[in-house]
């Protein structure tokens, strides 16, 4: 028997199931595209406020560095909105910022916790963009996080102003059109350090590298090896150490018998504190090898982390992006603002985050828009001064800042708990500039969402 009645629901067929799945997948994977249809670009501000997303490590081993970044961001927001003493806004060579927010909109912010894990950092950035309407994401204390979040910002169409990230890859093979880095990188550390090491320790040296077994460690080892070998040093050995290693005694103990007379610790954070402590405990600071004093080098210094190593940093060379003891007008203005608000001097992470926020705001003002592509265009090739580190260029080819790099040494007689490093050389930008092509990668095109 047949029936003329139509079924109430279309029966589920394989074809309809596939269509529904495809449609769902398309909608699910592109929420920004759909939500931004009514807008000229992703998260275009319509009201009187503009929201920035500060994505910093609030938990995990770098939480103290993240807290300092957050302090700097809060200070930058205060200054952008016309509060406080204005900090570096008064010394910044660009005079586009008026202290009335960004393009007349009051600056607000949301924060996320990167946990120093790329997945968690992407998730928190995504949440700030999609739920809170953040138009720019900034912050972080790790290259793995920076590369991951930069990739996300490129996909969804917002600007990423990197925090502390030192790997060559961030503006090298993993560079993106929507991403910008003010912080220096491994190549620059190597280029700045090598001449100072040559002057102080001679050009006939045999180096032993201990390298953290992840991307940043590799690029730093490569940079220091290339620079030091170019001036005559020989690399005796390079040993990779697990990122989770806490006791480095078994890696440090064989160094003295290896024929090396310099130990290079391509470590950061707790790795650096622990490996340096082990090296000093094993007597390397007072040892002799090949008729010379044995020396230790830490390519990337962080004052916050050097504090953990205590007395062990004394006399040890390294590089840093910025230091509160710099005497230029911009640095002093920032140290004064930060120090009076929080009671202690800012770290290099705080400095780069503060500067990145000002640079973003300034680019919006100069471009006359929050549109990421307009902002990116304003930042590309932008030359400025007055933000510490002297004259600086945001290179258009790779979105990397080129500025003076500091070579520092652990201070022998510190006058306070903050006075751990002394600047021994300000290496001019011209000495650390390189061809943008050497690290590969493609910027691609700007994405406005």
């Amino acid at each position, binding site marked *: 028997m047949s029936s003329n009645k139509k079924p109430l629901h279309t029966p589920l067929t394989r074809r309809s199931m596939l269509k529904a799945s495809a449609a769902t997948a398309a909608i699910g994977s592109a929420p920004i595209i759909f939500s931004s249809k009514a807008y000229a670009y992703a998260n275009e501000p319509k009201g009187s406020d503009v929201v920035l997303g500060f994505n910093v490590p609030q938990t995990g081993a770098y939480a*103290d560095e993240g807290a300092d970044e957050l302090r700097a961001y809060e200070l930058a927001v205060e200054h952008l909105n016309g509060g406080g003493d204005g900090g570096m806004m008064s010394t910044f060579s660009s005079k586009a910022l008026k202290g009335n927010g960004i393009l007349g909109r009051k600056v607000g912010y949301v924060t996320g916790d990167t946990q120093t894990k790329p997945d968690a950092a992407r998730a928190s950035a995504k949440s700030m963009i999609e739920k809170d309407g953040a138009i720019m994401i900034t912050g972080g204390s790790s290259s793995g996080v920076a590369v991951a979040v930069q990739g996300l910002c490129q996909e969804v169409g917002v600007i990423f102003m990197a925090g502390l990230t030192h790997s060559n890859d961030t503006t090298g093979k993993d560079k993106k059109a929507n991403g910008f880095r003010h912080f220096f990188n491994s190549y620059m550390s190597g280029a700045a350090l090598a001449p100072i090491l040559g002057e102080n320790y001679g050009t006939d040296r045999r180096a032993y590298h201990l390298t953290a077994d992840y991307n940043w460690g590799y690029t730093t080892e490569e940079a220091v090896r290339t620079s030091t070998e170019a001036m005559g040093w020989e690399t005796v*050995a390079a040993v990779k150490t697990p990122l989770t290693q806490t006791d480095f005694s*078994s890696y440090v*103990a064989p160094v003295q*018998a290896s024929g090396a007379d310099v130990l290079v610790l391509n470590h950061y954070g*707790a790795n650096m504190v622990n490996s340096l402590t082990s090296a000093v405990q*094993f007597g390397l600071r007072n*040892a002799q090898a090949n008729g010379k004093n044995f020396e230790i080098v830490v390519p990337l210094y962080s004052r916050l982390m050097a504090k953990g190593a205590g007395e062990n940093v004394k006399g040890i060379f390294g590089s840093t992006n910025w230091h509160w003891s710099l005497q230029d007008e911009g640095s002093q203005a920032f140290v004064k603002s930060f120090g009076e608000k929080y009671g202690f001097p800012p770290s290099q992470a705080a400095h780069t985050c503060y500067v990145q926020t000002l640079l973003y705001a300034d680019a919006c003002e100069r471009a006359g828009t929050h549109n990421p592509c307009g902002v990116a265009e304003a930042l590309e090739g932008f030359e400025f001064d007055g933000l510490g580190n002297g004259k600086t260029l945001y290179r258009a080819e790779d979105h990397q800042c080129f500025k003076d790099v500091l070579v520092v040494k652990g201070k022998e007689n510190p*006058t306070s708990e903050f006075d751990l490093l002394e600047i021994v050389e300000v290496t001019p930008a011209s000495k650390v500039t390189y061809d943008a092509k050497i690290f590969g990668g493609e910027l691609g095109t700007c994405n406005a969402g």
Partner: protein
Amino acid sequence: MELSAFLLQVLNGLDKGSAYALIALGLTLIFGTLGVVNFAHGALFMIGAFCAVTLQKILTHSFITLDETKTDFLGKPLKVKTPYVEEWFGQVAGQAIIDWAVPLAILFAIPVMLLIGFAMERGLIKHFYKRPHADQILVTFGLAIVLQEIIKAYFGANQIPVPAPEAFIGSLDFGTLIGFDPGVIIYPYWRVVYFIFAMIIIAAVFAFLQFTTFGMVVRAGMADRETVGLLGIDIDKRFTIMFGIAAAVAGLAGVMYTPINPPNYHMGMDFLVISFVVVVVGGMGSLGGAVLAGFILGILESFASMREVIEFIPGINQVVIYLAAIVILLARPRGLLGRKGVMES
């Protein structure tokens, strides 16, 4: 491999093994007496280390005077901190007291850790005696996270340097003592101290269990809790005391470890997983097994970190402990000194 390199890594393994053995000893003591798998034991090690940090902070608690001749980072007169102990006992004696903060912290840590151990056992762990091991693991792991977050909230996430006394800074040229050239086998003084300290603590725990009436009752309770209870002995009270002793052992291991690596809130977790492997490899509930396995795995880890070994088998330094555990457990399923019937259905 040269003999000197071999000896160097044996020495390195001994101090690593000392830490593993001390933590695993406490773990297996708790497991053997209370039958509890205590994932908060690493946190006790960490709290012990922070007892040293706390004592250092107390001893360096300072009053501030202004030095008008110097300026701080804001250009204001420099605030000079003078510890109260220097004011009270004179500069030389005060500095000597601060210098010996770590050994003094042993005296400070013992009552603190015993109290923490008692509070943990009476306040939380005892409610989970009759629950499955999975529940015990979850609750003690949760407790470990809470404890480390409390420490982080108060002391921050960065490491805090706690140096050894000046007399123990530097290293011993061990090679020259046994006929090698100078500078071939160097070993830091404090690590020698740590190894000797670990040996004393381990010997004391064994002696306590072996040669005291209390220890005899505890051992009897470990073998047959019910029968000991039927004899009218309050075994629960004794087991609570054993929990406190295990906490104190972990705490002392932490106190003495601070000059080796500056402590941070996460250091307990770094040791926890390896310590569990040590307990399993040594044999669940076996005190001697825990100590033996601690040293064997510590030495193996040191050898696997050698450049020549890593070049031969890349990545071996990250997995050697687990590979050794697999091999040992395949050959001896109850672990090195495990007894039949312990944690077996």
